[in-house]
């Protein structure tokens, strides 16, 4: 093993609970409760409840409090983007990751070496969160959810236009879009508003809390209404957002002749969309696509790359071809859903 790699692993490594920084004695996005956790963003597979100390951006902490209440953590320590704290000799900063509101990369400086942990990220503009801020380092730990070159997300506007076009073509049908409750829901709302769609959008109950929180945190999303109060016929020709699983199960029976859409990077592959019973696949993703992943590796320009959750082998292969030292981390516990 090359010497440089030995150096990084002497202070940051994978454990059964997740990525662990030894001199700082903290975990990043731990899978089981720990004494000190640094949380990159509020998705359930990254921000788990029950940690004693939690360090994250103020928005991520707000999201965790909304989701978990008291179980969000014992001591919650907010750290604004760009501010620095020192923990056990490790200088720690959070930088915007562009994934969802509050999402952050973790930048660690220790004895002259810098590690950048991307968390989940994307590079294209998102009206609901701060854009990814690239940072040079010696080791870059990157996600690879869409780490295959078949994943190239089209421009958001094109996908939103597909939805609006279908609405014009089928004006009597309700259009229900499957969206993840944190991030995707609010981003689709914001994209609709940017495309000039001003009518109220109806929300499944499970999406209301986080959408209100976004509004409270200063992200304006236009008029939304809880679906529960609306008659069936009033939903004809309207847009409803719901968690993906609800769109094809019993809950959906209250909708008039729905066109089932889904906003996800997986919609790029026909069989995936078909298998989920989707009629209108919308390729809208909060994760970097292949081009974004590879461009970011070049931009961060770290000599060493660790690849975690997703299609690790292809991105590792790519990075090695380009002359980086690279390996897959095979961390467990992260979900494919987005």
């Amino acid at each position: 093993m090359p010497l440089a790699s030995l150096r990084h692993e002497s202070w940051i490594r994978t454990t059964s609970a997740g990525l662990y920084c030894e001199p700082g004695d903290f975990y990043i996005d731990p899978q089981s409760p720990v004494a000190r956790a640094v949380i990159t963003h509020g998705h359930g597979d990254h921000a788990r409840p029950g940690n004693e100390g939690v360090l994250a951006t103020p928005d991520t902490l707000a999201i965790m409090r909304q989701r978990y209440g008291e179980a969000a953590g014992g001591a919650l320590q907010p750290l604004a983007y760009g501010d620095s704290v020192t923990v056990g000799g490790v200088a720690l900063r959070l930088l915007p990751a562009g994934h969802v509101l509050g999402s952050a990369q973790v930048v660690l400086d220790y004895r002259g070496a810098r590690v950048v942990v991307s968390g989940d990220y994307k590079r294209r503009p998102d009206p609901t969160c701060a854009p990814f801020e690239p940072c040079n380092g010696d080791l870059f730990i990157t996600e690879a959810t869409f780490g295959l070159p078949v994943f190239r997300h089209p421009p958001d506007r094109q996908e939103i236009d597909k939805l609006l076009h279908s609405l014009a073509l089928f004006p009597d049908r309700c259009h229900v879009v499957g969206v993840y409750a944190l991030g995707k829901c609010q981003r689709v709302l914001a994209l609709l508003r940017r495309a000039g769609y001003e009518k109220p959008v109806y929300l499944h109950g499970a999406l209301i809390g986080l959408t209100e929180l976004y509004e409270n945190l200063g992200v304006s999303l236009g008029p939304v209404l809880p679906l529960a109060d609306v008659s069936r016929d009033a939903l004809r020709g309207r847009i409803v957002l719901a968690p993906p699983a609800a769109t094809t199960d019993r809950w959906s029976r209250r909708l008039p002749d729905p066109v089932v859409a889904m906003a996800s990077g997986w919609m790029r592959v026909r069989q995936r969309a078909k298998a989920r019973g989707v009629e209108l696949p919308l390729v809208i993703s909060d994760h970097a696509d292949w081009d974004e992943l590879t461009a970011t590796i070049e931009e961060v320009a770290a000599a060493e790359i660790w690849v975690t959750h997703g299609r690790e082998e292809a991105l590792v292969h790519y990075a090695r071809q380009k002359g980086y030292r690279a390996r897959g981390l095979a961390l467990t516990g992260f979900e494919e859903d987005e």
Partner: protein
Amino acid sequence: MNRFAALLDALLFTPSRNGKLRLMQEYFASQPDPERGWALAALTGELVFDAAKPSQVRALAAERVDPELLAWSYDFVGDLAETVSLIWPETPGVQIPVPSLGEIVKQLKATSRNDVGSLLEAWLDALDATGRWALLKLVTGSLRIGVSARLAKTALAEWGGVEIDRIEEVWHALAPPYQPLFEWLEGCGPAPQTGDLPTFCPLMLAQPIEESDLGGLDPRDYLAEWKWDGIRVQLVARGDVRRLYSRSGDDIGAAFPEVLEPMPADVTLDGELLVLRNGEVAPFNDLQQRLNRKTPTPKLLRDYPAAVRLYDILRADEEDLRTLPFVERRSRLEGWYARELPPGLDLSPLVPFASWEELRELRDGARERGIEGLMLKRADSLYLAGRPKGPWFKWKRGALTLDTVLMYAQRGHGKRSSFYSDYTFGAWHGGELVPVGKAYSGFTDEELQRLDRWIRNNTVQRYGPVREVAPQIVLEIAFDSVHRSTRHKSGVAMRFPRVHRVRWDKPVGEADTLESLEKLLT
């Protein structure tokens, strides 16, 4: 091409018939000639290419992307054309003129397989991902269209405000890209003329009738004939051209040379395509062997000899006979048959009867002879396209039924996507349940809701989207026939199985056995 590809893509994802019609109509209304005409040709299955092999497509991609990344991607996506369409590198900012479908068709026809590579490469660079997918499916001959030719013509008819039969009638006198057809439908051209071409006359179809409805009809007004268990066809011979049309107007003649070649001109006949051995009708499954092949091998021709059993004559020696009453057409048919005695054709006999009672006895005795039931035709009926109410009835023999046990359920599609509406049912065999078929229909909305609830509450195991349920519900399944099948574990397959009744009352131990199903084999 990109717009056409987007239509194909949307058709594949849209489950409902009305949705598909709307998508096609919007396309016809918004696209120019001749592009929409070429699209119509693709939708109706007239555009078939075999211009490139999958291995050529793969090789093209391997020149542009790292082979290992290509292999991993193919593993993940599972479809070569789709993988290549998604992985093909795009050069941002470079605008290459997008080829039209018409241009692609023209160049493919003029290019040999050896030279097709460079053409493909240039097109792949110009198209978007969906366009690349449709192109690759088209050139490798694996373009799957989410609609039937009939549905595409229905969309066209509704959009143009004409009856679909008018389109069927002229269809075979036209060729892609169908400019005169579009001009006519848009009201800026005359109706296309069929002239001397062997075109298709849309078929006259019968209404189903139940025994209880017969009382209101006078048996003296009707003639009866057997309804044979094959597929309904139309034979057209005009000049040197011979055509065999299926019910939907598709030309299936190439698969049945022994019927077409000896046919005398000029005539249009209506009949049933069957496999006949010494005048005996073979099981439908035998005909299926022939229908599955575009061109038959000598062995197939020998083992499954096809023939058409004639019901009616629609045109002879330049004369349209459709406006004559059925009795008159029948005597013309008999006269024509006696004169020509064409090999490969025979005459479906009339079934004489004096009362409905007598006819019912004849029908019930007819199970063993390749007979599906009876046709009742008013003696004075003209030959009218479509399914007019009154002149013709089909009186099917009673369906077979079997008491089976519900084993697995899966959710349906479209409107039924939240309901467990697709059922796999089994029969007993040596103390175990063996799956013997699947049914998706036959139940009422109330029964579906009750079954859906029951399935959710009685699931014992899940396999992805499939739920295995406790063996507690007896489904009485109705089906038309059962035949041997090597593709099914049980060794048998039913024809048109549907749920006849949900027997909430019946203990599963009293359901039928595989052996009792085998006794019904035809």
